[in-house]
């Protein structure tokens, strides 16, 4: 555990360095155009002509000017500290000093990423729970019923090749039309994405008991229910948790995708809004927030896994 802290720090550091370096050529064209508007002489001809030149050449020939790529207002690639500042301002800054912030109003501001992360989190958790429940039930059906096994499994695979994300707006609208609004349509999409790993993992897990263990149950004259409760389900727990970690990340993706078309808050809406108004820094901040959320959720499942396995007498 501790042995990996240092390497991780190195990798993160390397990413930051590459990020900063890359930002200069990424932003150079716009930087030059703006410098030109400000009256500066830049190498590379007109803005239209510069389009044809390589970014590296532009950086090399306009060394002083190009450094402004780290401090643009609407960069193509914002640098880490810009994202950090935005993250700070749209969380702590907004809540503490904002007109509608927590300090002023006693409620979280709708301009704050905390609110949006909360909205996304709610739908993700609900969707994840629905997806997990559906996945477990389906797996139980598949393990106990051969007709179901043979007919459902191929379609479960095919279901995942349907570009559900493209369907998201339609699902939202259709559910809207039957009066289902708010969190649930998003949760349905995240449930759809998260049920598959659970089915696959649970089918494997429920089938993990070997012939000997099943025979043992048989010699005790145990019924299907007893075998499920006392053998198959406990045996499937490690498989379940492995799937849950994948499923919760998928659920988060589902929620965010479900939030894209409906501008009713959430990190997905926030990313898209950032895109509408050319606020790249805002997109990156929302992305980072989503990554933190994802890491937190996966970490939480991991923690639950360790606790459960320990409670089940695990050697680990």
């Amino acid at each position: 555990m501790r042995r990996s802290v240092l390497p991780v720090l190195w990798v993160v550091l390397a990413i930051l360095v590459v990020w900063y370096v890359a930002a200069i050529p990424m932003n150079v064209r716009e930087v030059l155009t703006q410098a030109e508007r400000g009256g500066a002489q830049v190498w590379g001809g007109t803005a239209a002509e510069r389009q044809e030149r390589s970014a590296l050449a532009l950086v090399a020939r306009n060394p002083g000017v190009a450094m402004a790529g780290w401090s643009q207002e609407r960069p193509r690639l914002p640098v880490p500290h810009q994202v950090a500042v935005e993250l700070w301002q749209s969380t702590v800054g907004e809540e503490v000093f904002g007109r509608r912030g927590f300090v002023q109003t006693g409620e979280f501001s709708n301009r704050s990423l905390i609110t949006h992360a909360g909205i996304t989190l709610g739908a993700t958790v609900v969707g994840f729970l629905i997806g997990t429940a559906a996945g477990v039930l389906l797996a139980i059906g598949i393990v106990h019923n051969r007709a179901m096994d043979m007919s459902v499994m191929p379609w479960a695979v095919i279901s995942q090749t349907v570009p559900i994300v493209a369907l998201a707006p339609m699902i939202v609208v259709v559910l809207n039309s039957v009066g289902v609004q708010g969190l649930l349509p998003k949760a349905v999409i995240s449930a759809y994405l998260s049920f598959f790993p659970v089915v696959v993992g649970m089918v494997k897990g429920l089938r993990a008991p070997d012939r000997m263990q099943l025979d043992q149950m048989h010699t005790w004259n145990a019924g299907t229910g007893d075998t499920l409760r006392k053998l198959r389900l406990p045996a499937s727990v490690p498989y379940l948790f492995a799937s849950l970690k994948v499923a919760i990340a998928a659920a988060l993706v589902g929620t965010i995708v479900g939030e894209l078309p409906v501008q009713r808050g959430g990190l997905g809406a926030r990313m898209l809004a950032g895109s509408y108004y050319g606020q790249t820094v805002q997109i990156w901040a929302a992305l980072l927030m989503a990554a933190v959320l994802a890491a937190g959720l996966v970490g939480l499942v991991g923690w639950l896994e360790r606790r459960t396995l320990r409670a089940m007498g695990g050697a680990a």
Partner: protein
Amino acid sequence: MANAASLSRTAGPVIEAQGVNLVFQTADGPVQALRDVSLSVAKGEFVSFIGPSGCGKTTLLRCVAALETPSSGRLTVNGMDPDAARKARAYGYVFQAAGLYPWRTIAGNIRLPLEIMGFPRAEQDARVDRVLRLVDLAGFGRKYPWQLSGGMQQRASIARALAFDADILLMDEPFGALDEIVRDRLNEELLGLWARTGKTTLFVTHSIPEAVYLSTKIVVMSPRPGRITDIIDSPLPRERPLDIRESPEFLAVAHRVREGLRAGHIEV
């Protein structure tokens, strides 16, 4: 000991097989796993089955336990058909690997069949205690299987099979995974246990000394098709210290078993 001996004569055969055949239908065609097997086991006997891999030892045990159904022939357990006996919980089955559930403590593992059979809680506790003491594991009930050595796990698995007081103990290479020294020790203990409880025991093994040391009757089997080639009633006394294994009677029986085996054995 006297106890076991007296019990062993009380009634008719506990297990009776007559002309049992079993054919498995496989993708490569039918496999005759048992051919014309006839055998009679009296109450309180300790019967070992020995034979090369694939000769049908496990299959025969599974037929007795109603885990397989013979294709033809007659097989009765306690005078009923094996499935009725299974439902009457007539036997405890011990497999090669201890097969304890890692998520249950030793006591929890032993309690498992009792829960399934619906014993009341207090009765469960009493029985778990009793069999733990019987296999010399008192005090280990709260441990998890992986905290015990292989030999102790195997004893716990025997305790589990004994907990619900089945008449018949079926053991399929229970000590196959253990090293020889541990095995010697458990053989001695199993013999003691058998003497104390008087349970009719069917025991599958690959080890000639083990078979000879434990049994009142040794069944030698041969593969392709699986059949019985020799049934040896042991002349050894019921009281058997470990070094009986260097006695001439012992060696004589072992020799007969080995010859029987070699005759039936084909290609490795």
